[in-house]
């Protein structure tokens, strides 16, 4: 029973059903593991052990009564500190929300609770999901389990590191420009951003509302499929949530694999890419070719514009969304304010960290009078061109394969003082958010320095089944899913 914390959901279910162990024992195994490694990893900003064990007991009681709620009953799911869980702290890794507790559950949390999952802890992140390294947290950095001097990626760095280190069976993250996929790649796990509108954003603290999506992180493709199908569904509380038929992604993985046509965009393999990353992804593409998939070179000609488009649109939306943190009804309030305007500006100046301030200023600037057309409107038009590139490509191919990130995990502090270099790290992931498409990252190799390499599979809108199937086919024919970091 010692390695319960590294088991997959199917085998945990078998064990729970056959009474080989209880949900409490499973939870305890994850708690013990977390206690053992957390001083090195710092994946959590908060965790309530008693509450988790209480949820485990409730699960065991349901099962004893023959009322198990399904495959997630008793499975510990780690939660990024940006999703509301009733009566738990919600800080978005920011001093701005110190002391805040959610009065309600996010819709994805409600769905997990209905499925019997154990809602486990608050996972570290870049403040308000702004960052690519989890260094912008007011509660300390998270380390990459594969190399403690490296960053785990971000912004869902805690979600990826916890799954990689065995501190959660699966976790939820959020992805605005790559914030699930890039940390998944850096920590050697699977991470998926669903099609925009597939998962409700109700109860997700908004960063860039037209880009944000909630998605799963796991140690194998099937667990991501299971978690995804649990949290999808139309939600009247989120007007951008789409009314799509519910898909059972996990059972589709047991069907024989279709040999699809995979597009390889030449722009993603040119300058700036690390040689080991390039070789690992090319090797994976060659494997698909050898297994009967058709491989086609494609072009996404506006790719290099996605970084400026993204950092205009995302910061503009953020400057508007974060206006709610004003120190009045909730959030940090400055003690030095003598009038209302000072209350706003001092509370915000004290509560927000450096990267958040940088983005609020940038977003305010691109929306300000005289600059709106030149920056924001123009970026929205180029966003249309980026989407058209994908539409064009998907007339010829079923899915698109790229590296997830141009490099493996980098050293902590390496890009701290160069925000532009940090932004460029997202170059392969952000076009997917701009176009609203689904994409996942899965491990396809290791560098000589023992750092994981991730490959991104991008699908058509609502093509989750296709990209999961493509990833699953690779995974079951390779050994990467069983590799564990030595912590």
């Amino acid at each position, binding site marked *: 029973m010692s390695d319960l914390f590294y088991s997959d959901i199917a085998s945990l279910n078998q064990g729970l059903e056959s009474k080989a162990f209880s949900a409490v024992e499973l939870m305890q195994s994850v708690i013990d593991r977390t206690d053992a490694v957390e001083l090195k990893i710092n994946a959590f900003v908060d965790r309530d052990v008693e509450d988790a064990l209480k949820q485990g007991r409730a699960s065991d009681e349901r099962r004893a009564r023959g009322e198990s709620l399904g495959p997630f009953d008793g499975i510990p799911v780690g939660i990024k500190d940006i999703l509301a869980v009733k009566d738990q702290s919600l800080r978005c890794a920011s001093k701005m929300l110190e002391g*805040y507790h959610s*009065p*309600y559950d996010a819709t994805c949390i409600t769905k997990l609770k209905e499925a019997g999952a154990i809602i486990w802890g608050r996972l570290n992140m870049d403040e308000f999901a702004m960052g690519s390294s989890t260094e912008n947290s007011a509660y300390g950095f998270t380390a990459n389990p594969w190399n403690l001097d490296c960053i785990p990626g971000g912004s869902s760095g805690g979600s990826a590191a916890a799954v990689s280190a065995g501190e959660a069976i699966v976790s939820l993250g959020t992805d605005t420009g790559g914030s699930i996929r890039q940390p998944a790649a850096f920590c050697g796990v699977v991470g998926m951003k669903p*099609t*925009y*509108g597939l998962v409700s954003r109700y109860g997700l603290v908004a960063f860039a509302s*037209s880009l944000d999506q909630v998605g799963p992180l796991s140690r194998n493709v099937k667990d991501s499929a299971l978690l995804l199908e649990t949290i999808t569904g139309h939600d*009247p509380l989120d*007007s*951008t949530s*789409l009314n799509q038929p519910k898909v059972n992604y996990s059972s589709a993985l047991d069907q024989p694999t279709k040999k699809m046509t995979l597009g390889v965009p030449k722009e993603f393999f040119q300058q700036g890419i690390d040689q080991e990353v390039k070789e690992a992804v090319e090797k994976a593409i060659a494997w698909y070719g050898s297994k009967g998939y058709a491989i086609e070179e494609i072009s996404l000609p*506006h790719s290099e*514009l996605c*970084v*400026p*488009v993204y950092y*205009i649109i995302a910061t503009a939306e953020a*400057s508007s969304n974060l206006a709610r943190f*004003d120190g*009045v*009804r*909730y*959030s940090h*309030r400055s003690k030095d*304010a003598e*009038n*209302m*305007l*000072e*209350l706003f*500006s*001092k509370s*915000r*100046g004290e509560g927000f960290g450096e990267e958040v*301030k*940088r983005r*609020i*200023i*940038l977003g*305010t*600037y691109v929306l*300000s009078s005289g*600059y709106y057309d*030149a*920056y924001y409107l*123009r970026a*929205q*038009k*180029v966003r*249309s*061109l980026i*989407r058209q590139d994908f539409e064009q490509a998907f007339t010829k191919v079923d899915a698109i394969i790229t590296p997830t990130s141009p490099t493996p995990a980098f050293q902590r502090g390496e890009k701290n003082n160069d*925000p*532009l270099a940090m*932004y460029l790290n997202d170059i392969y992931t952000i076009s997917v958010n*701009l*176009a*609203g*498409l689904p994409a996942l990252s899965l491990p396809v190799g290791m560098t000589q320095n023992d750092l994981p390499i991730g490959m991104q599979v991008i699908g058509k*809108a609502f093509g989750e089944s296709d990209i999961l199937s493509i990833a699953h086919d690779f995974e079951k024919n390779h050994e990467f899913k069983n590799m564990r970091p030595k912590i």
Partner: protein
Amino acid sequence: MPKSDKKINIDYVAQLARLELSEEDKSKLSGQLNDILVYFEKLNSVNVEGIEPMAHAHKVDNVWREGDEPGAVFSKDILNKMAPESREDQVVVPKVVE
């Protein structure tokens, strides 16, 4: 698009954003933001004439509620507890009228 020699007026933008910045923040941010704005000029390389702006991933129509039935609301207690300062079921703020 404005040329990069038009430096960002950090005091003005910070005031628009209701965000107090230290002098150190200001000098650091201005330099970095000007670099980022130069990078944004890449967008000038593409012709966007006749291209529709895209605000959303999917075409989103106005979403109407089926019927706006009153539902459960948070208790005054919960809301008051969230506020940094409250008194007699009201949120306390500095004086706004002279």
